[in-house]
């Protein structure tokens, strides 16, 4: 924290230490006090017999007002200090609590997950410090869970499927989004078309799963097919299958699940692409036309490079999405028929098979896989701002 230099003049080492301590103290004190105030308010309101609406109003004022007041008081306190100390401490009155809460809720659980992942299903000892007095418990397995992840059959299936998800899910979401954006841009029905494509975005993954269950609904051969997909397949002389569960085509039955996410995500990519395309100056295309470019060349050599940043952003965002995919698989197949993915494995191991150590290890692997994409994604965002 010390390297954030807001000081107008050099501080002595002693002052630097004091500054760091006070900064951390401010960062921790504010949220702790805020939680205290909020908790006291919760207890007070819980035990009161006032009418519901009054409780709601008081709660809102108490919650928002209390936190605001807290910030205000701390800011006021800091402003009583000499000028250079205000510069040192004031940012931390506001940023500090956010950093602290972020650490508490994100960094600590991550570290804890990693800790748990080093143990078998019996889990880590109740107190971390007991390892110094009692030594490592028998449940400690080191990195064995990680070794298992890369050797176990279901996990390897999950990795394979996740790669399918990334490759097909993100690529087709980007391609279809781009096509819709370009076509809609030239159409009189732009708004209607875009709204229709965008609508699925409003549906939750679970909801989409339910909808697509109907799409893939299969009936015995002698009765009419009510599922749209099978109705079409049968009408064309094919054989009805419960497509996501059709293991004969494994691993390609995963595509029937991936389609669902593409259906959901095309709207997202279309909206971003549409905005980016509209941002291309008309004169740029005209210059291309005069330079001798055909419409296809203008598209691939001027428009696509121009919106390259957006394409990468959308693509990486969907890659992160598909890496973490869970709901659709869980609702449609529950991970059976060779459709297991990393996240379903994580859930199954942690909460069904009651092996939190193994589950945590999977979660850590998932995290490690997402982080580089995330960093790339963030960098793209930053670059676009600079553009």
């Amino acid at each position, binding site marked *: 924290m010390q390297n954030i230099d807001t000081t107008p003049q050099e501080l002595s080492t002693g002052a630097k230490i004091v500054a760091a301590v006070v900064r951390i103290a401010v960062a921790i004190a504010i949220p702790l006090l805020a939680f205290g105030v909020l908790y006291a308010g919760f207890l007070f309101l819980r035990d009161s017999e006032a009418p519901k609406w009054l409780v709601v109003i008081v709660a809102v004022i108490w919650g928002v007002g209390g936190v605001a007041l807290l910030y205000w008081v701390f800011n006021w306190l800091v402003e009583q200090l000499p000028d250079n100390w205000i510069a040192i401490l004031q940012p931390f009155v506001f940023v500090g609590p956010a950093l602290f809460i972020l650490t508490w809720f994100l960094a600590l659980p991550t570290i804890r997950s990693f800790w748990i992942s080093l143990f078998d299903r019996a889990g880590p000892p109740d107190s971390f410090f007991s390892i110094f007095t009692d030594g490592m418990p028998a449940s400690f397995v080191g990195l064995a869970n990680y070794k298992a992840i890369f050797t176990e059959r279901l996990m390897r299936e999950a990795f394979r499927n996740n790669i399918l998800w990334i490759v097909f899910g993100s690529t087709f979401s980007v391609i279809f989004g781009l096509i819709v954006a370009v076509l809609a841009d030239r159409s009189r029905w732009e708004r209607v078309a875009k709204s229709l494509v965008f609508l699925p975005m409003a549906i939750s993954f679970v909801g989409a799963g339910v909808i697509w269950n109907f799409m893939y609904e299969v009936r015995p051969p002698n009765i009419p097919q009510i599922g749209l997909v099978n109705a079409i397949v049968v009408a064309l002389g094919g054989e009805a299958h419960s497509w996501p569960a059709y293991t004969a085509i494994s691993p390609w039955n995963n595509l029937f699940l991936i389609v669902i996410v593409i259906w959901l995500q095309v709207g997202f990519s279309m909206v971003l692409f549409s905005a980016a395309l509209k941002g291309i100056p008309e*004169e*740029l295309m*005209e*210059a291309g*036309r*005069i*330079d001798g*470019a055909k419409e296809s060349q203008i598209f691939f050599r*001027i428009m696509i490079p*121009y919106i390259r940043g957006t394409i990468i952003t959308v693509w990486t965002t969907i890659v992160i999405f598909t890496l973490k995919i869970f709901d659709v698989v869980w609702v449609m197949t529950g991970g059976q028929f060779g459709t297991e993915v990393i996240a379903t494995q994580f859930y199954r191991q942690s909460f069904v098979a009651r092996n939190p150590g193994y589950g945590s290890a999977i979660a850590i692997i998932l995290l490690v896989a997402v982080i580089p994409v995330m960093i790339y994604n963030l960098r793209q965002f930053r670059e676009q701002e600079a553009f």
Partner: protein
Amino acid sequence: MASVTYKNVYKRFGDVEVIKNMNLDIADKEFMVFVGPSGCGKSTNLRLLAGLEEISEGEIYIGDRVVNDVPPKDRDIAMVFQSYALYPHMSVYDNMAFGLKLRKTPKDEIDKRVKEAGEILGLANLLDRKPKALSGGQRQRVAVGRAIVRDPAVFLMDEPLSNLDAKLRVSARASISKLHRDLETTFIYVTHDQVEAMTMGDRIAVLEDGYLRQVDSPRNLYNLPANMFVAGFIGSPSMNFFDATLVGEEGNLYVDTGDFRMKVPEARRAPYEAYVGKQVIFGLRPEHIYQAEFAAPNIVPAPFEAMVEVVELLGHELHLYLNSGSKSFVATIDIRVQTHVGERMSLVGDMNNMHLFDKDTEEAIR
């Protein structure tokens, strides 16, 4: 190298007619300037020629070929845009080479031409840069470079200097004029700035409201404006217009504005005889009005008086806003004149440079 011809060209956007019966012959290797206030149709005319807009009626020829239905890429033109429209993802080199690459020009030919253009425009050491890393003046030169490597028959420029600061604009103006001499190609240049028009054009086409008002050399536009619009548009400050009556008395012809009366020189009388006794518009440029003591030699003086209302000293020029009684006007006076607001000043107008316009048609009486 080619001539350009507009023949009865109309352009309509829906019900709005933005180009009305444009007829113009532009000679091969000519530097033609389209000038006029915003919305006059000058850019639209250029875009019609470039093929970026469709012609509603009439024909445009490049050389002897009707290009109405020829796509922009086959018209053998190059265009410099106001915003430069450089491809942001390409280096300066690639920006200039793009058009040649699309035309499948051999690689070493491209290289030769781009480097040549880079030399001419002083971009030789910037060829690897992206447009983002260039200054406004450099970008403008890249835009010009992109046009010249193509070696087109006609060069189109749509206000290429309007995004430059005033100082840079002056030097860029000169370098474009020089480029025209060196390339010996037809240039068509759109601007709203009459200084650019006057300094660069072989001929200037003045447009207003979709109509072509006059086409002529800069000198003739200034000396012999065909109508009140051109008279008022060319020259700064603008020409003064007075409502007047032509009066014939004792064998002489006078312009009578009500406030003052000026004698029409014998040499200029002939075309005006038909208007004797009629209402006309009398035009006199500010620079053709003198303070009586500082009148230039060789003028045909006509004395009158007016009250000084505003004094503007520009250093090399003194602009006076004067009132002759019922009408305000501007005069550019010798800077040695000492004056103050409220002074009644003796003036002379140079009747050799008088202009008379028909009150109804606003056309010059010749």
